[in-house]
């Protein structure tokens, strides 16, 4: 294993372990999926069995998105409060390889939220998880999680430079639930919204998950989802050193 791959893996393990140790996060991990599953059920209970599955899958991806979008800023804020951000910057490792595992670990926590949402839906509301293409479904889920983690990385890069970028993460949480089609189809929205949806990887990840569940053709959606995730990462890697230099010039790294 190369040193960079090892750094990514060890960084992911380290931050996932830290997130898993938080009892507060643990409680959120129980309550949020319950909330998402309930929202999905009450929105779609008047519809068909298929619409319940549609909502249940959408609600489950809401958890992944929420865990990453709001937490990416919070994670960097925590690094600032704990005085570890400066130590991470002072290390010789490329900063993008230090930061990416942080958001991937968060997206992984979101994966748990996804499973828990589907489970609550099954246990409390009897929503069956009928999947036509299990293999493609099992590919679509991690691809979506990784792409969302990569979007979180882009947010985290902005947060290194701008202390208040965490607010952007919070601001994006609820609109993305809507414009990425987690709960309602994109066709419900005005045409001008769609280009915004198209540049957001969760839109394509969501479609890939639903297509694989209903027996459609998820591969194109899956590829676009991963492609956008890689694009976010590439942008993040390109700008991170520039942002870091600006933060060092403005003495912003130690500010909380």
């Amino acid at each position, binding site marked *: 294993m190369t040193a960079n791959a090892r750094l990514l893996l060890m960084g992911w393990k380290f931050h996932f372990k830290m997130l898993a140790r938080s009892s507060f996060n643990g409680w959120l991990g129980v309550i949020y999926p319950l909330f998402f599953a309930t929202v999905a059920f009450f929105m779609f209970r008047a519809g068909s069995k298929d619409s319940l599955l549609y909502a249940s899958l959408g609600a489950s991806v809401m958890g992944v998105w929420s865990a990453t979008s709001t937490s990416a800023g919070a994670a960097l804020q925590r690094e600032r409060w704990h005085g570890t951000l400066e130590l991470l910057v002072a*290390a010789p490792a490329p900063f993008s390889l230090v930061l990416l595992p942080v958001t991937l670990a968060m997206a992984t926590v979101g994966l748990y939220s996804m499973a828990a949402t589907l489970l609550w839906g099954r246990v409390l509301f009897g929503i069956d998880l009928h999947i036509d293409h299990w293999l493609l479904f099992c590919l679509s889920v991690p691809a979506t999680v990784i792409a969302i983690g990569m979007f979180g990385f882009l947010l985290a890069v902005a947060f290194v430079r701008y202390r208040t970028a965490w607010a952007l993460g919070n601001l994006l949480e609820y609109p993305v639930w809507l414009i990425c089609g987690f709960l309602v189809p994109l066709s419900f929205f005005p045409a001008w919204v769609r280009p915004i949806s198209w540049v957001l990887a969760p839109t394509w990840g969501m479609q890939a998950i639903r297509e694989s569940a209903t027996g459609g053709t998820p591969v194109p959606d899956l590829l676009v989802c991963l492609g956008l995730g890689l694009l976010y990462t590439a942008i993040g890697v390109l700008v991170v050193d520039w942002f870091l230099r600006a933060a060092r*010039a403005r003495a912003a790294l*130690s500010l909380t």
Partner: protein
Amino acid sequence: MAVVEAKDLKRTYRTSTGILRRRSVDVEAVRGVSFEIGEGELFGLLGPNGAGKTTTIKMLITLLIPTAGSATVLGYDVVKDAREVRRRIGYVFGGDKGLYERLSALDNLRYFAELYAVPPAEAKRRIEELLDLVGLAGREKEKVEGYSRGMRQRLHIARGLLHDPPVVFLDEPTIGVDPVGARELRATIAGLTHAGKTVLLTTHYMFEADDLCDRMAVITRGEIVAEGTPAALKAIVSDRTVIEIETFGVDEITVEALRHVSGVASVSIEERDQAQVLHVQSPAGTELTQTLLGVLDGTRVGRVAVREPTLEDAYVALVGVDQ
């Protein structure tokens, strides 16, 4: 060749005041600092809070870009060759921060070993050695949140040495640590130079600087006001004598009156429990005790002693602060 070289380093911070009418204000934290540190030397940077010690060290470890001037570490420029500098330095700062508290010391050390690209087998060996060195062997699997201040500080030192850097920057490493813990930390720091490392230590504890440093610079208000060996700095006040007067409840007006007594070079106050100990510097051979006690008439006075000046007195004379 100097291992660390700072040439006319300057750093200005821009801050703003006001809410509706915001106004930018430039604060000069470091105003042209220059010094050199030789290989294997333990160099101290002394100064009161806000003197510019941490800003100087942060420029040298690449966390801050200087507003003007330049600096190199092992020949690498701290701005242009930041990554090369980072590979070769260790950084330890004092206080509770800088650790992942929910995880164990071992987790913390393993993670930072990865960040410094220490190969796994070597990291395992280094971690074991360093846990022994800093006295945390056997406690490494406990969560850091349960550690005392001294244990955290020792863990900081272990973290800073993981990649065996030839140059170590220590920013007030003993701050807030109890006397026994601080003594153990000082022994560890002294051991670094025996291991051939070049060390820059910032502190405002004079006895610590006197005990550890080969050479030191005194910095105040962003400028270096003196540089030399501890003995050379002490010599600055060798022609003085110090009268120590223990008082209880002395007020600022009286202290100000003492400062205006003819022959008094400086007066500093040290708080000791309920007492305030006044350290009055005056030229050697001047007998001022009775005059000073006369000014203190009405103030409860305890022990009075005359002693030779120490490094701390030299420091007070140089920085010109009343503390």
